[in-house]
C-alpha cells in the first residue's frame, strides 16, 4: 500500500502463509512505497507473521516476512519504525525483516522477535539493493528466538 508522503500505520495484524514458493503466498504485510519527498512516516508494530512449512514445498526463494521497502528505487522516508513484531519463520525460505532500495531517516527496530525454526540462516534483519540512510538505523531489544542472540545490526540471510 502506497501513500505518497503521508502516514502509514500497520499494527496488530496477523498474517499466515502456507506453502510459500518463489514470489507468492507469503504472509508479509507491506511492500508499498512513498514518493521522493522524504516526508512519509511509516510504522509497523505489534504484527504477527507465521510462515509455516507445508512439508512438501522444499527449499524456495527467500521470503522476507516484514518489508521496509517499496520494491523499487526512489521512495524516501522521514521515519520508519518496526516495533514489537513477532515473526515465526518455520519455512526454509523464510528470512526476517528486509530493508531494501529506498532512502531512510530515523529507521528504528525495537523489540522485534524472530523465531527462525527450520530455516538455514533465517532470523535476521537485513539489507537488499543498497538502501541509503541519512542517519544510523537503531536497533534495540530485537531477538533471534532460536539462538537467544540479540539482533543489533543488519545481517545476512540466505
Amino acid at each position, binding site marked *: 500500500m502506497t501513500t505518497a508522503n503521508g502516514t502509514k500505520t500497520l499494527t496488530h*495484524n496477523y498474517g499466515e502463509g502456507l506453502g510459500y514458493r*518463489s514470489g507468492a503466498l507469503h504472509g508479509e504485510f507491506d511492500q508499498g512505497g512513498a514518493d521522493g519527498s522524504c516526508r512519509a512516516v511509516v510504522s509497523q508494530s505489534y504484527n504477527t507473521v507465521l510462515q509455516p512449512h507445508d512439508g512438501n514445498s522444499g527449499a524456495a526463494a527467500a521470503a522476507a516476512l516484514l518489508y521496509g521497502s517499496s520494491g523499487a528505487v526512489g521512495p524516501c522516508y522521514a521515519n520508519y519504525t518496526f516495533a514489537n513484531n513477532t515473526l515465526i519463520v518455520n519455512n526454509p525460505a523464510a528470512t526476517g525483516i528486509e530493508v531494501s532500495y529506498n532512502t531512510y531517516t530515523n529507521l528504528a527496530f525495537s523489540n522485534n522477535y524472530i523465531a527462525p525454526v527450520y530455516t538455514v540462516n533465517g532470523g535476521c534483519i537485513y539489507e537488499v539493493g543498497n538502501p541509503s540512510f541519512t542517519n544510523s538505523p537503531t536497533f534495540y531489544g530485537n531477538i533471534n528466538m532460536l539462538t537467544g542472540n540479540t539482533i543489533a545490526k543488519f545481517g545476512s540471510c540466505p
Partner: protein
Amino acid sequence: MISAIQRGGGQTTGNGCVDLLVHGNVSGTIVIKNNRWRNGADKVHGTFGCGIENSIIVDIYANSVADSLTITNNLCGINAENGPAPDPNGVTTCFGANMTKSGATIDAEYNAVFVAWTIL
C-alpha cells in the same frame, strides 16, 4: 466524505474472484472494515484463476483526492489447495492501495490474512 464499506464478501469480478475495487476520484475517507473474504483455486480453468494469481482482494486505485484509508478487522483468505504451483511472477495480496494525495494516511489494524498453497 465517502465511506466505501463492503460487507459479506464483495462483488464477483470474473473467474470466481471476489474483489472490492474503489477507483475514480473518491474523496474524503475510505473505510474497509468487518469483511470476510475467501478466494480459492479456480479448478474450472485449471489454474489459480483470479482468486490466486493477480488477485488484490481490496484494491484502492490511484486516487487524487482521498485523505485517508482505514482497513480494520478484516479477514482475508486465499486458499490454493489442490492446484498447480503459483506463478512466481503473479501478484497475490489482500489489500492494495495507492494513495496519491499529499499527506494521505493509511491505517491497517486488526486484520488477519491467510494464504495457502499445497502441492497437487
